[in-house]
């Protein structure tokens, strides 16, 4: 691990990371503040006025507790959107962009092995995602505790975020793997953004009707099911394990292939 390179990564990615994390936090604050413990039923009525297909497609559900309220709104479509932007851009910048532009030649000519460089970039990739979820979790806990004291089951909420983070380790793994194996920006971005977006589309299609629900099972997002987590279903824990394993395989595979392949520098 090269600390110098890590610092340079922070510098190169801090703008996009801060921007997205701030917007994401902002949304999180609004959604938490929308919770009304007295009027959970009014909320339900209001939601009924919205087209059901639309809500289903977005995976949006409404809950009567603060935990299910947050999970229904924030850990569905918005979860797919904000961290994904960071993941796609950061992972592309870490390896593929250096190879595409040619600046990788300079990194490698500084007597750092390919493995060392790839491991450093993988560390940054994982830490950037971890930090997004840490910030989001803390922001939501602070807002929840100050606006609705005693309403949030903090333990379950943290578990939900660990679950979401593991999902993102796997997605980030896809982007990192794409970044390590692509010679050109378009392949890295195409695969890194395309595959997760395809999974989102599958998930949305699967949600629109019973007879196409099998489509949703093809998506990596099918492994992420907060309701089953809250219900104490072992499926959620199996999901976590599988997501974590996917992440390990993709990150390790990316590093191994980056080490072995020809670089067009």
């Amino acid at each position, binding site marked *: 691990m090269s600390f*110098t390179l890590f610092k340079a990564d922070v510098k190169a990615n801090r703008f996009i990371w801060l921007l997205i994390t701030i917007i994401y936090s902002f949304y999180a604050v609004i959604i938490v503040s929308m919770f009304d413990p007295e009027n959970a039923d009014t909320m339900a009525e209001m939601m009924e006025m919205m087209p059901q297909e639309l809500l289903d497609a977005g995976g949006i559900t409404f809950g009567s507790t603060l935990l299910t309220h947050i999970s229904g709104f924030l850990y569905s479509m918005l979860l797919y959107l904000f961290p994904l932007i960071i993941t796609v851009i950061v992972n592309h910048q870490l390896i593929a962009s250096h190879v595409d532009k040619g600046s990788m030649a*300079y990194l490698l000519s500084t007597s750092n092995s390919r493995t060392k460089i790839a491991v450093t970039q993988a560390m940054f990739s994982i830490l950037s995602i971890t930090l997004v979820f840490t910030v989001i979790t803390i922001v939501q806990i602070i807002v929840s505790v100050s606006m609705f004291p005693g309403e949030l089951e903090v333990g379950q909420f943290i578990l939900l975020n660990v679950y979401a983070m593991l999902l993102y380790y796997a997605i980030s793994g896809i982007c990192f793997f794409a970044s390590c194996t692509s010679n050109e920006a378009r392949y890295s971005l195409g695969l890194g953004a395309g595959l997760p977006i395809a999974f989102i589309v599958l998930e949305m299609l699967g949600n629109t009707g019973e007879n196409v629900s099998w489509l949703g099972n093809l998506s990596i997002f099918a492994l992420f099911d907060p309701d089953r987590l809250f219900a104490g279903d072992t499926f959620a824990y199996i999901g976590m394990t599988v997501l974590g394993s996917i992440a390990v395989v993709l990150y390790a595979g990316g590093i191994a292939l980056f080490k072995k392949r020809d670089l067009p520098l």
Partner: protein
Amino acid sequence: MIELNSLTKKYSNGKGIFNVSFQVKNGEVFGFLGPNGAGKTTTIRHLMGFVNSTNGSASISGLDCWTDAAKIQRQLGYVPGEIAFFNHLTGMQFLKFISDMRGIDNKKLQDSLIERFELDSGRKIRKMSKGMKQKVGLIAAFMHDPAVIILDEPTSGLDPLMQRKFVELINEERNRGKTILMSSHLFGEVDQSCERVAIIREGKIVAVEDITTLKASLKKRFFITFEHKRDIEKVKMSGLDYTVSDVNKVEIVINGNYNEMLKALANCNVTSIDASTQTLEEIFMRYYGKEGN
């Protein structure tokens, strides 16, 4: 020091390099000549450990270029053919970054190089011209005082004054015992500093020669313009190898017989003399009777 043993890299499009073998001795400045697309950069990629060969091997100081790349880099300075840096950094920040990445900080050498190339190091790399970026690349390659230096078309983009400073630097480094390999598609670029050259064409080494032998064997062309066309008659009688290119212009080809030309021209009214720079194409024509691309 640098050793290539039938290094072969086949690409799926049939291009690549085939059985490339040559040695660069310790303390030698070695030129690597070839037209664009001949395989110079591919060969250098092997030396840098960026690509693995299909066959054969390359080594620097006895270390394998593929498996020991990181170890080799500690003693190696490299100037890539295409300049691609970290655009958001200034020249100075970039040099500092590279020093930190290497873990070798030779501030004194770095400063003297910045001074020598008159680099405005506070400027953002994004805003630099090609020549300025080239200077940053040269400083980055030399500032850790490496024993081996590999340069891929190093003077492209430099103005004539900077090219001269570059040649001076190369000569100084050679005198300090450095081993230098530089590629070029221009004979003039390696002419002033290299002792030996290898010529590559269509992925194959066609010659490894002393630069003096190569130069002696080359014909030189002069374009002479006379004030009066009657002077052309004097050239015709001199027995020189010539062609009349206009009413008062001739092209004379010299192969070491400079004195004959000077004697013939001494009685003429010459208004201009131009000498053509030797191009690689002409070397190929001379050596192999085939045209370079």
